[in-house]
């Protein structure tokens, strides 16, 4: 026979899942959030998104080609584009573009590629980019432009974010009280201020549903984060309703949804086993509220995730999946 047969060990079939398809799944899941932000902020944030995505891709390409001298084209796997997009979604609309480029450079260059590229980084690049910018340029990073669309539609929407109000209350700022918080519904559909991507909890939840449906991620991390944050905030609220905002406002405000759904679920920096993922999720939920309530920054999500990223290797070492042979041997 002239034809040479292909030989390899089994399995001989694959479910067709690739890194690209997973990254694409996340990108598609972000579409509702993107649409909402474009609707609210217009072209201004389109520039930020494009700058961020492009600079991430270009940078990864350059580092891979000229620093690693690798022939493999890693940018085609879509992870660089995703990092860029997630970084942009974590920035306030109206941020100077050079800052966006700086953040992208830090995310890709320092956090991702210096560890060896996709799969080897310890921290979530997009989040580290954001935190880097937040610490370097606190003023610009917390200047929320007025939500144009919302201010036209709903009279009197201001630049003050729900988180700003909560922090104000906690710091006993004059004239600020929790009554000024927008209603849960407003926060849910997203007519309040915030970063590009954290506007509408509804849009983000749509993304979550899509990703779970497409099996890009499992429910463990996002649900445990949201549930823990809600329960913890609710307890605090019961203790002192004047000082502490209620659970619903906490989970719907700021970057909690965006973080829980898109940032904490990053494959590379989250634990591997379901049990580990749940521990990670609970810890992030608790840390977020702790930082929000007792920390110096109004937003605790980024820091909570980054802290837990650091604990991920430890979680992987100590929280392992249960062996089939050690499952309870019940007789039924």
């Amino acid at each position, binding site marked *: 026979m002239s034809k*040479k*047969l*292909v*030989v*390899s*060990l089994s399995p001989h079939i694959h479910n067709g899942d690739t890194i690209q398809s997973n990254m694409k799944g996340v990108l598609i899941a972000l579409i509702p959030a993107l649409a909402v932000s474009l609707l609210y902020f217009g072209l201004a944030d389109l520039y930020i998104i494009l700058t961020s995505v492009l600079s991430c891709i270009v940078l990864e390409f350059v580092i891979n080609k000229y620093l690693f001298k690798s022939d493999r084209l890693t940018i085609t796997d879509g992870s660089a584009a995703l990092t860029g997009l997630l970084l942009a979604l974590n920035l306030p609309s109206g941020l100077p573009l050079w800052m966006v480029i700086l953040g992208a450079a830090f995310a890709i260059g320092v956090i991702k590629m210096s560890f060896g590229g996709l799969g080897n980084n310890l921290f979530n690049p997009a989040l580290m980019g954001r935190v880097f910018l937040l610490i370097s340029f606190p003023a610009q990073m917390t200047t929320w432009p007025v939500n144009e669309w919302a201010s036209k539609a709903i009279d009197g929407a201001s630049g003050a974010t729900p988180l700003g109000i909560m922090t104000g209350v906690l710091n006993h700022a004059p004239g600020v009280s929790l009554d000024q918080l927008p209603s849960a519904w407003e926060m849910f559909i997203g007519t309040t201020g915030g970063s590009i991507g954290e506007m509408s909890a509804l849009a983000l939840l749509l993304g979550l549903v899509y990703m779970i449906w497409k099996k890009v991620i499992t429910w463990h991390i996002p649900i445990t984060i949201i549930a823990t944050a809600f329960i913890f905030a609710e307890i605090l609220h019961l203790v002192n309703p004047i000082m502490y905002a209620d659970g619903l406002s906490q989970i719907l405000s700021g970057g909690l949804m965006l973080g829980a759904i898109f940032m904490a679920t990053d494959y590379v920096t989250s634990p591997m086993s379901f049990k580990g993922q749940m521990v990670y999720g609970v810890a992030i939920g608790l840390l977020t509220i702790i930082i929000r309530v007792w920390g110096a920054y109004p937003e605790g999500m980024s820091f909570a995730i980054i802290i837990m990223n650091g604990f991920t290797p430890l979680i992987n070492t100590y929280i392992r999946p249960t062996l089939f042979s050690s499952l309870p041997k019940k007789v039924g």
Partner: protein
Amino acid sequence: MNVILIAVIALGFIGLVAAVILYAASKKFAVYEDPNIGKINEVLPQANCGGCGYPGCSGFAVACASGPDLQGKFCTVGGQKVMDDVAKIMGFEAIATDPKVAVVRCNGSCEHRPRTSQYDGATSCAIAAATYGGDTDCSYGCLGCGDCVDACQFDAIHMNAETGLPEVDDSKCTACGACVEACPRDIIELRYLGKRNRRIYVSCVNEDKGAKTRKECSVGCIGCGKCFKECPFGAITMKNNRAYIDYEKCKLCRKCVVVCPTHAIVEVNFPARKPKLAVTEAVKPAAPATKAPATSSTKAK
């Protein structure tokens, strides 16, 4: 002023206490170590390859320092020179050992051994060997995935893209044996480097019957036994349909090379033959180690 003074005094006091503790600890927990171990360790190449059979260079140093002599102890990386140094340190008699080199005993290049299937599994000889007999009909020959190359920490073995076989660089090979371990087919063997780097070996380990071997590979050993009859020194043994040349007995006379009908016996670094005998030169070894100068192997680090 006062603050600075307090700081200086406080720090100085802490330093003093720490120094006393450290001194006490170093006295109390001191472990006696044979100073020779340290000295030997210094002359060893620190490759930690395990080629000597001990766990790394320090393990070898301990063994040298504790043994009654250096019998059976040899640092393949450092070679004779290092062993002479070790002997000097210990006051033992230096034992002369002939240097060895790794030899790839398969000549089944793409041209000699036709491919009959395509291997598509993980790039690992061990896994390819677990999968099947290999992408040629010969289930004894080189699989070409380069486990030996990965195992070598001296950069002495490389895959030749043209032949699909690994080639050993004599000048870099330290005969540590890592590639011998790594090869799932036991193709690689440590043999004497030989005078002026000259070696003769059967470059085939195929144990199939002659007729099958012929179909599988044009340069395979068919076990005809001609070399066995020809060898004047009794260095060749026939077993499982293949010939093997004992490098301890071989006197490099080259008579076997001439009679081998399939050119499975390979000679390395010999001068060209007279035209009458030039027939065998038609088949060059797939791993020509030409660059190596005569004495370089002991100098390699």
